[in-house]
């Protein structure tokens, strides 16, 4: 069910260095200077995230911003110094190792930047691997593996070995492998960063196609703002270990939290992201034509510019405002 909270990170801290835990208990909310003075290296500072069921939640940051550490804290590959992790209301930091293994086997999936395929196994065995770890019989595991391999478009490659495939194909295997166990929470750690730009776009489309079908809850890491904008339902921007803003792509562009965020938004093509209703004026008007409020500017720009007078904006058959050519041209010109 869409809209309910699936996964919560509360006050996640990760400091590297000796006695980091003691330091945090003494001073639960230290400043950057205080941390550095104590000889500790801050990787994640007080991260708070709530991910909704079926949402693509993108964490975007440049290298060294702490995004990789954060996703590793979320999956408990790295133990956070402080904080709570709740998956479906279960406190992940307060369960036994055995329970954690069970949750990883059945509820979590992860895709890695450099694919992390096992070099000694062929594609079929690689994809079936997580299932065999659970104790599923080889025959059943391989049957399921064949299905997901077909799903990612690699039918016929079963007997190939990872190094015989291209980077894009390898990552398809990585995706197939993490989907084989039908995870509920799907971590993707810069999955397309190691790929060529053309392949990257193709893989993003493929990813969106899969998500439209599977509707997983997704936490996606990237350093590429365009990629974040393209894929995300919501984006968290990280800098120096801190999340500075969490917002939808549209909101991020309209209301950047600070100059740092604004700097990123300057270079994206706004017309593709902004919807008509986010830039219209609320004065109603009469016109022969009308546009849908949730349509992206880029799709209706031609129609609006061709009309001299303002056009009515409607949503669910009701007029909610108006928009004119001047506004559209302003948006189109502003983008670089």
């Amino acid at each position, binding site marked *: 069910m869409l809209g309910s909270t699936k996964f919560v990170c509360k006050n996640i801290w990760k400091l590297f260095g000796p006695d980091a835990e003691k330091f945090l208990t003494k001073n639960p909310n230290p400043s950057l200077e205080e941390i550095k003075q104590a000889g500790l290296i801050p990787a994640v500072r007080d991260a708070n995230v709530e991910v909704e069921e079926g949402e693509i939640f993108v964490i975007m940051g440049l290298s060294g911003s702490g995004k990789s550490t954060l996703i*590793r804290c979320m*999956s408990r*590959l790295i133990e956070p110094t402080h904080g709570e992790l709740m998956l479906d209301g279960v406190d992940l930091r307060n369960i036994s190792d055995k329970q954690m*293994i*069970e*949750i*990883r*086997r*059945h509820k*979590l*999936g*992860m895709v*890695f*930047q*450099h*694919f*992390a395929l*096992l*070099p*000694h*196994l*062929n594609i079929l065995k690689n994809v079936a*691997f*997580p299932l065999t*770890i*659970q104790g599923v019989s080889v025959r059943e595991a391989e049957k399921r593996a064949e299905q997901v391999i077909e799903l990612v478009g690699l039918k016929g490659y079963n*007997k*190939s*070995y990872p190094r*015989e495939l291209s980077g894009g194909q390898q990552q398809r295997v990585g995706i197939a492998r993490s989907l084989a*166990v039908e995870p509920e929470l799907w*971590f993707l750690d810069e999955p397309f960063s190691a790929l060529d730009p053309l392949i990257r776009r193709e893989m993003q489309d493929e990813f969106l196609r899969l998500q439209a079908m599977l509707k997983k809850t997704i936490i996606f890491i990237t350093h590429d703002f365009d990629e974040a904008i393209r894929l995300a339902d919501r984006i968290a921007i990280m800098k120096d270990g801190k999340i500075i803003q969490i917002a939808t792509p549209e909101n991020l562009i309209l209301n950047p939290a600070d100059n740092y965020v604004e700097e990123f938004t300057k270079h994206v093509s706004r017309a593709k992201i902004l919807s008509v209703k986010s830039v219209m004026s609320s004065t109603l008007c009469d016109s022969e034509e009308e546009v849908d409020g949730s349509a992206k500017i880029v799709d209706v720009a031609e129609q609006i510019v061709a009309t001299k007078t303002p056009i009515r904006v409607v949503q669910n058959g009701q007029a909610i405002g108006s928009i004119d050519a001047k506004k559209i041209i302003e948006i189109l010109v502003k983008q670089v």
Partner: protein
Amino acid sequence: MMKTFNTIMNSIWFWIGLFILTYIIAMDAKNIAEYLNAPWLTKYPKDWIFPTKTYISSFMNWLIEDASFGLFTFTEFTRAISWTIEQPYKFVLALLSSGFTSGFGKNIVQILPPLSWLGVLAFVIALAHYAKSWFLAFIVGLSFLYLAVFGQWDSAMITLASVVIAVPIGVGLGLMFGIYAYYHPLFEKILNAILDLMQTIPIFAYLVPILFMFGFGPVSALIATVIYAAPPMVRNTMLALKSVDPEIKDFGIMTGCTRFQLTWRILVPASLNQIMVGTNQVIMLSLNMVIIASMIGAGGLGFDVLSSLRRLDIGGGFEAGIAIVILAIAIDRLSQAFAVRQVQINKKHKDYGVLSRYKRTFIVIGILLSALIFGQFLPFLQDFPKAYELSTGTFWSDLIKYLNINYFDYFEAVKIFLLKGFMLPIKRFLLSVPWGWMILILTILGWKFGGWKLALLNLLMSLFIVINGVWDKAMITIYLCGASVIIAAAIGLPLGILAAVNDKAGKIIGVFIDTLQTLPSFVYLIPVVMLFRIGDFTAMIAIILYALVPAVRYTAHGVKNTNPELIEAGIVSGATKWQTLTKIRLPLALPEILLGINQTIMLALSMLVITALVGTRDLGQEVYIALTKADTGRGLVAGLAIAFIAIMADRIISAGAKKARIRYGMEAE
């Protein structure tokens, strides 16, 4: 005060002065001691000797006679280990060499003969073809054929049997320790320290306690082989597991692997490459150990070499020695081919019928069975016919005889010249330096290169040597080893430089040192003994041959890998070739050259115990005597003394090399 002291030590004149002072003290030590009426100054008194060796020996006695773990005694424990190792060994030995028998003494009946030579030959050829190619099959087949034709078959099979048992045990233990260390950092630290120490203690030193605990026989030899061969497996396993891509490890954890699954289904298979390197090293070291192991009861080729050496039978020893080398080459190539094959398993298998798919297996089984059945009537199927065996033994013996008859005077002249003009002065000098003064110098050296920690280490280690009453033997050790290293460096450095600046010469020198390296250390001893007879000189030549390799290799590497920009800078400044070499390449290669000399010293020290066979009087001899008497305390003390000399030399030189690297900015302080 400290600062002035340091400046003084940095001056070259300080060291020259110290040397002259030492020389004067050494010359007059006797007189001074007499004058002061303090003989202990020159000779460490017997009464002051601390009986470490007696303690160790009585501890060992207690261990074997009284020690008990509650449920069972120590002796029962060692016997259980022997029994466990003996069973598979007996089986493989029966298979390859002795045949299966029943009954005892006179009633002994052979139930089944061992595998026929044809069968074994077919088996290894098939294995080589399966692992790689017809070419490898040809090489391996030829090697085994050599063993049969030159009459080494029976001994070789005994040796092979011990390798077949020792290698899996060594690999298994190495894997276990390596994996445990991977998950337990504290254990890893302890293990690394032990492995470092094991590398410097000569093998002989731990032969003695093994002999004491497990008795004389093939089982002791197997245990010694495993202890000698397993350490590189431990190191390679740790290295292999650590080198696995962290993402792959993360993937394993995210998939919900238990630790067992993570180890055996992810980490080990993903790093099989490196683990196979370790396995290969275990195999090579097991073969290196063949001769030494025969001193505590292994039969086979090693025993042949050892007994020929004792009989001074040059031909026999050489033949058996070469057989070891050939066996080693064959097994090495075979195991390397398997290592590569393991990694590229994706050869596409086409599905033929069962018969053609397993045709190699069928052929080998066919040959084995027919040899077994028809071997009863046609003995040449079972054993290689004696009439067709060849021997090169007489050729080698004759060659040496010829050299001795015609060139004896020349050899003798060289020997006497070097002995009188070079070796004896060093020996006399070292022996006459009072022990207290020597310890002081070692401590100062430690301070100069490694600060107070190294000074303290040197002080304690040299005190250990003197307190245990092996000072004179230690000095002879240093003399023998030092003289060898000086000559090895004098030959090795120019060869290394030549190899670096001239590609053609480099190739020839490469082949030369590769050959030196594959020969088992004993093999050097035989011809040298024949030409120069028994004594220090012979020992020195054998040590030089054995220890030359790293001096050449490191020098060549260091000189060759000078930063090309610096050489260009030299050329642009108008330097001649000679100037670039002496002013740029050599100084920059200095740290690497120092490390090469360090390795040379380590190899020289490890060779000492082997040269004890030709009648040296150093610590090596002490260990050797302890071995023949199974005197654990004596052997361990002498072994530790050698190890301490090695450690002191190693630390001083490494620290010096590090200082040089820091000065050149190749390494951060």
